[in-house]
C-alpha cells in the first residue's frame, strides 16, 4: 500500500490530460450566442463620463452601431484597443462602449490613457446589462442593426481580419 503514493503524480496527470483533451474541442474565442438575430436586450445606463445622462436601447434605434464591452482591468482589451481607435476614426459606424464591472474613475483614466474610440461608454457597474447580453468575458463586441437586433457577436479581442472580413462587410450590408 505504501507504494501507492507514487501513483499520485500519474493519476493527477491523467486528470489533467483529460481536461486538456476536452479543451481541444473548445475554441476559447468562439461561443455560439443564443442572442444572434434576436432583439438586443433592453438597457438604460448612465454614461461613464456623465452620470446624469442615461442612454437606453430606444435611443439607439434607427442606426447600425457597435457595442464593445471593455474594462480597465482587462488585459486583452489593451490588445484590441489601438485597432478599435483606428476603426472608430474611419467613422463607418458609431462605436459605443459598455464599461463592464469597472470603477468609474479607473474607466475614465483608462480611456484618457489609451484613447477613446467611443461615442459614449455605458457604465455597467454591477454588470447587470452585461449578464443580459450574455457576456462571457471581456472584451466582446456586438453589431446591432437599425431595428435593434443583434447581428454579430465577437468573443475576445477584435483582430484586423475579423474587422475587415466580417464586421465591415456586415455593416455595409446593414447600412445599405
Amino acid at each position, binding site marked *: 500500500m505504501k507504494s501507492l503514493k507514487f501513483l499520485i503524480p500519474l493519476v493527477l*496527470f491523467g486528470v489533467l490530460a483529460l481536461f486538456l483533451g476536452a479543451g481541444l474541442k473548445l475554441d476559447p474565442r468562439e461561443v455560439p450566442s443564443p442572442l444572434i438575430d434576436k432583439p438586443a436586450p433592453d438597457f438604460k445606463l448612465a454614461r461613464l463620463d456623465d452620470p446624469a445622462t442615461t442612454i437606453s436601447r430606444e435611443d439607439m434605434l434607427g442606426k447600425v452601431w457597435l457595442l464593445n464591452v471593455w474594462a480597465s482591468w*482587462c488585459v486583452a482589451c489593451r490588445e484590441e484597443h489601438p485597432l478599435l481607435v483606428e476603426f472608430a476614426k474611419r467613422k463607418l459606424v458609431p462605436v459605443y462602449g459598455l464599461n463592464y464591472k469597472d470603477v468609474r474613475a479607473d474607466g475614465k483614466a483608462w480611456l484618457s490613457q489609451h484613447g477613446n474610440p467611443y461615442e459614449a461608454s455605458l457604465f455597467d457597474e454591477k454588470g447587470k446589462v452585461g449578464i443580459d447580453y450574455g457576456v462571457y468575458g471581456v472584451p466582446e463586441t456586438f453589431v446591432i442593426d437599425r431595428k435593434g437586433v443583434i447581428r454579430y457577436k465577437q468573443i475576445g479581442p477584435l483582430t484586423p481580419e475579423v474587422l475587415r472580413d466580417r464586421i465591415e462587410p456586415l455593416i455595409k450590408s446593414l447600412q445599405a
Partner: protein
Amino acid sequence: MIPELGHFALWLALAMALLLGVVPLAGALRGRDDWMTLARPLAAGLCITVGIAFISLTASFVRNDFSVLYVASNSNSALPLQYRIAGVWGGHEGSLLLWVTMLCVWMGAVARFSRHLPLPVVARILSVMGWVAVGFLLFTLITSNPFERLFPAPADGRDLNPLLQDPGMVIHPPMLYMGYVGFSVAFAFAVAALIGGNLDSQWARWTRPWTLAAWIFLTIGITLGSWWAYYTLGWGGWWFWDPVENASFMPWLAGTALVHSLAVTEKRGAFKSWTVLLAILAFSLSLLGTFLVRSGVLSSVHAFATDPRRGLFILAFLVIVVGSSLTLYAWRAPRVGLGARFALLSRETLLLGNNVMLVVAMAAVLLGTLYPLLLDALGFGKISVGPPYFDTVFVPLMAPLVFLMGVGPLARWKQAELPELALRLRWAFAVAVVAALASGWLAGRITLVATVGLLMAWWIVASLATELWGRIKPRDGASVGARAALLPRAALGMMVAHLGVAVFIFGVTLVKTLEVERDVKMGTGDTTTIEGYVFTFRGVRELDGPNYRAARGWIEVTQGGRKVADMFPEKRIYRVQRNPMTNAAIQTGLTRDLYVSLGESVEGGAWIVRVYYKPFIDWIWGGCVLMMLGGLLAATDRRYRSRAPATAAPPLATAMPGIGTLEHEAP
C-alpha cells in the same frame, strides 16, 4: 533545391533519432557494449542532419525564397537581414525546428561532456533524448513542415509580425527554448536512472550542472521576454500573467525547486524520489507550455495560428512522454528508498520547505492558467482569470519562501539547533527591519505592502551578510582575503543568486509603490513635470523606416534647468501587415527610468503622450541577471569541472573532505 535538402535532412534525422532511441537502450538492457557505443555517433548524426535542416531554412529566409510557404508568410524582401534570420523562429513551423535544433545542441553537449560517465548511463540518457527528438521530429514533419512549397510563388512575402521586429525578439526565443529544452537533459538523466535503478548522489552530481545550465538559459529567456514587453508594448508593464508567460514561468519554478532539491540529494542522499519527480515535472511543464502555446486552447496575446490537428498531436505526445515517465516513476521509485535521515530542524527540512513552497506556487500558477479551460470543459462557461488572482495568490506564497531563503543557508545539515540559529539571525532580522523602515522613509512613502516588500529584500541581504561573514571572518590565522579566496564557487553562486532575488524584490516593491504614470495632451512647446523632471514636447515628424512609416515624437527632458535627455518615441505602421506599433522611448538610469510613448494624435497637431516615471524598474531585470550569474558560478564549480573517473568517487559527497564539506559547513 535548398528547401528539399532541408526536408530530406529532417526525414534522415527522424531515422537517426529512431535508431538512437532503440539501439543503445536495448544495448544497455542486454549488456551489449557494441550497441551502446553507437549512442554517440548516432547522436552526432542526428545533430548534423537537424543542423542541415535548420541551415536550409535560414538560407531560404536569407535568399528571400518566397516559393517556400513559411518564408512567404513570415518575411518580406524589405525586411532587414537580422530580422529575416529571426524570421526562422517567427512562426509555428520554424519555432518547432528551433526546438529540435536546441534539443540537438543539448544532446551534442551531453555526448561530448559525458566521457566520465559509465557507458550504460550515457547510452540510456542519449536514448531517452532520442525519443524526445522522435516525437518532435514527427510533429514537425507530419503537421508543421516548414519546407512546404507554394505554387505559384508570390512576388513578395507577408512580412514578419512587427511585434517580433526587435532586437530583444531576435534572441528571446532561442534563449527560452534553450531553457525549455535544457530540462530534457535532467529529464533524460532521471528516466535513465529510473530504468537503470542507480539513483544515488552520484546521479544528482551529474545532473546538477546540466539542470543549472538549463535554468540559466530559461532565466535569461524569461528576463528578455519581460524586458521586451516593457519597451515594445508601450504601456510600461513588465509582467502580465499571460498564459504564455506562465507557460515559461512554471518550468522555471519547478526548475528552481529541482536545483535546490538536487543539492540535497547530492550532499546528503536524501529526497531522491522527490528530486526525480521534480526532474520529470520540470520537463513535463516545458512540454505542457508548448502544448498551451501551440494548440490554441487558451487565448493569449501570443497566440500562434492554431490547428486542432497540431493540438491533438502534441497532447498525444505529452501523454506518452509524461504518462510513461510517471508510470516508470510509480513502478521504480518505491525501491529508491528515502536516503539519509535528518532531524525536524535541519537544512534538509528547510530546503524541503523551499521545494514545497515553489511547487505550490507553480501549482497556483498552473491552476490560474488552466482555470478558464477547466470551467469551460465542465460546462460552466467562459471566464478569464486576470492579474488580480495571481497577485493575491502568488505574492503571499513568496513571503515564507523568502523567509526560508534567509534561514536555510545558515542551518546545519542533518540537525540544526534553534537557539543557535536564532542567535545568529537575530541581528540580521533587526538590521532588516531597520533598513526596511529607513529605505521606506527615504523613498518618501511608507505603506504596508511596501514595507513588507522592503523587509523581504533586506532580510535576504542581511542574512546573506551574516552567512558571508561567518565564512570569511578571520579564523585560525587565515585572513579575510585568504578565506574569501577559498570560498567555493557553488557557495558564492548561491549567494549571488539570492542577492539577485533581493534586488528583484526591491525593484518590484519600489516600482509598485512609487511609479508615476501620466497621460497628457501635449502640443508643441507644452511641458509637464514629474518628480522634478520637466518634459517638453518639441513636436512630431513623419519618417520612413525600411518597411514601415513612423510618426516620431521629440521630447526634451530637463532637470533643474540641465538637459537630461532627448527622447524619441515612435508610432509605427508597418506597410505589409498594417498594424500600428508603439515604440516607447526610455531613458534608463540606475534609480529610475523615464518612459515616454506616443498615444493618439488629437486635433490641432497635439498628441496624447504617456509619460511614466519608473523608479528602480531596471533592478527587476538586474536581479534576474544576478540570479543568472549565480547559476553560472554554481554550474562552473570546481567539482563539476574536474572529471574524476566515475568509479573513484564515493557515493556521498560528504565523504569528500575539501569538496563537499567545505562548502556548507559554516563555522
